[in-house]
């Protein structure tokens, strides 16, 4: 009787999507992230590209995919601001790698796990952003941790809605 280890279990549950989903979902996340704050004003407490990075990274056994996706989305997010390009890039690269690494070891089909992971990774992303901006680059930045917490909660709520929706596009073996 074969022993069902975490790795072997995850290898059986690799999430695959049509190529169009890999192209359109990150693009839609970027566009909506840029457009929705104009509609919602100061209450836009979420980071859609980060949620998308976490979702795709958790579903694949190779951390490279999550790392590269995080890097690209982070750089494009930076390009839409007036800040140096690479701050969000570094943060989301690390988050993509972490999400992939965690996704191999735990069962990410469980909603509670997904929610807790999204909350923790969102806070980690804010922390990395702050570290790169203030410590690594030495730039002045007034920081509000309450905003970071609200964004993490917003991401968690979005994950609860978005993850089951994206699961519908998964290719079943």
């Amino acid at each position, binding site marked *: 009787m074969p022993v069902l280890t975490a790795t072997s279990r995850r290898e059986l549950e690799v999430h695959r999507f049509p190529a169009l989903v890999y192209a359109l979902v990150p*693009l839609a996340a970027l566009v909506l992230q840029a*457009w929705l704050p104009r509609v919602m004003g100061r209450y836009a407490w979420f980071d859609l590209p980060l949620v998308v990075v976490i979702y795709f990274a958790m579903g694949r056994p190779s951390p490279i995919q999550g*790392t590269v996706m995080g*890097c690209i989305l982070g*750089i494009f997010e930076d390009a839409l601001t007036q800040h140096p390009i690479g701050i969000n890039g570094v943060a989301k*690269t690390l988050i993509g790698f972490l999400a992939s690494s965690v996704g191999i070891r735990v069962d990410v089909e469980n909603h509670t796990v997904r929610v807790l992971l999204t909350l923790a990774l969102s806070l980690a992303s804010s922390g990395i952003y702050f570290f790169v901006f203030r410590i690594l680059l030495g730039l002045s*930045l007034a920081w509000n941790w309450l905003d970071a917490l609200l964004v993490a909660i917003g991401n968690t709520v979005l994950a609860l809605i978005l993850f089951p929706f994206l699961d519908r596009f998964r290719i079943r073996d």
Partner: protein
Amino acid sequence: MESFFVRYRNPLVLLALLAAQIIGLATQVHRADSGRMSLDPRDSGGVRLIRLWADALVSPPERILHSGGSSFSSLWSNYIDLRHVRQQNQQLQQTIDRLRFEQAALLEDARQGERLQRLLNFQPQYLYKTLAAQVIGSSGTTQSRVFYIDKGTADGLQHDMAVITPDGIVGKVRDVFSHTSQVLVINDQSSGAGVILETTRIRGILRGNASGQPQIVGIIADNRIKSGERVLTAGGDQIFPRGLPVGVVEAVARDPERDGFVNVIVKPYAALDRLDEVLVITSMEPRFPADQQQDMAESEAIKGAEVQQQEAQKKASAVMAERLPGLIDPNLPADQQPLNDSTPPPPVAHTVQPLHPDRFTPGNAPTDNTQPPAQGSPIQPRTP
């Protein structure tokens, strides 16, 4: 060796990506004269290229979303939600009529001020050439308070042009692409606008804080600064023209970094987080729009008519004065005319009241034109 790369390919890819981005970041910041690290105000070629790609990727869908949203809201507001519109229209018409009169008067003052400024060799800057633009997107993060508008170099926009609304200032154009531009809002931490408090005339620099509220930083504590005082642009930053409304003082907070200094929190007039349309000041040359020129012409016409009316009244007075008997004596020189005679009039002799009035007493005599006038009676005007 091959097994090393295969075995550690995941962390190696991670390290390569991180190293590349950190090196890229290092090229985008520099140490300022003050010793602090700061951003390069202008992007290098590579960075600008990435921003261009991001804009090209995100702006077209944003335009579609924006036009779709605008069409829906237009359909709703123009065809469905029309309650009380007629009443509002009447009120607005009355307001417009009143404002047109006030505007004509104010324009006269403005022209006078302009003339006085020209006398003092100041550059007159009252009215500006502006371009309307629609907000189509934002940066998507609260750490960066910028937004995108649907006008770019093709429409004549340039770097550092002021962006305003009729309510107050909004920000400045930071980056310009062919059909879009990035606007840095005044409540961003990296923005800066020269402002002045209207009453106390205290000057300072306006920039955003962590919560996205604009504040005037580095002001020496002053008890005269009160809530509700208006804040205007000072005009010294070469971006915003002088005298534009910014907002009102909301609170005064102690500067945590420097003793004796305060930060003045400003409530902006413009709704910075809910902007739909903005105006970009494309030229600061003095210019009067067509409708204002028409108002000025009307004002001039009214003024000319008033002058003509006054002249006509003077002329009529002169004719009347000529015709009035006794006031002008043709036999006397001009300086001795009764109108111009400044000598005091001769004293009037008071008649003694008789104890027993008879028919010779003035006032009791019968009317008789043939009798000579009695002594001491008032002088009758001579007829010509």
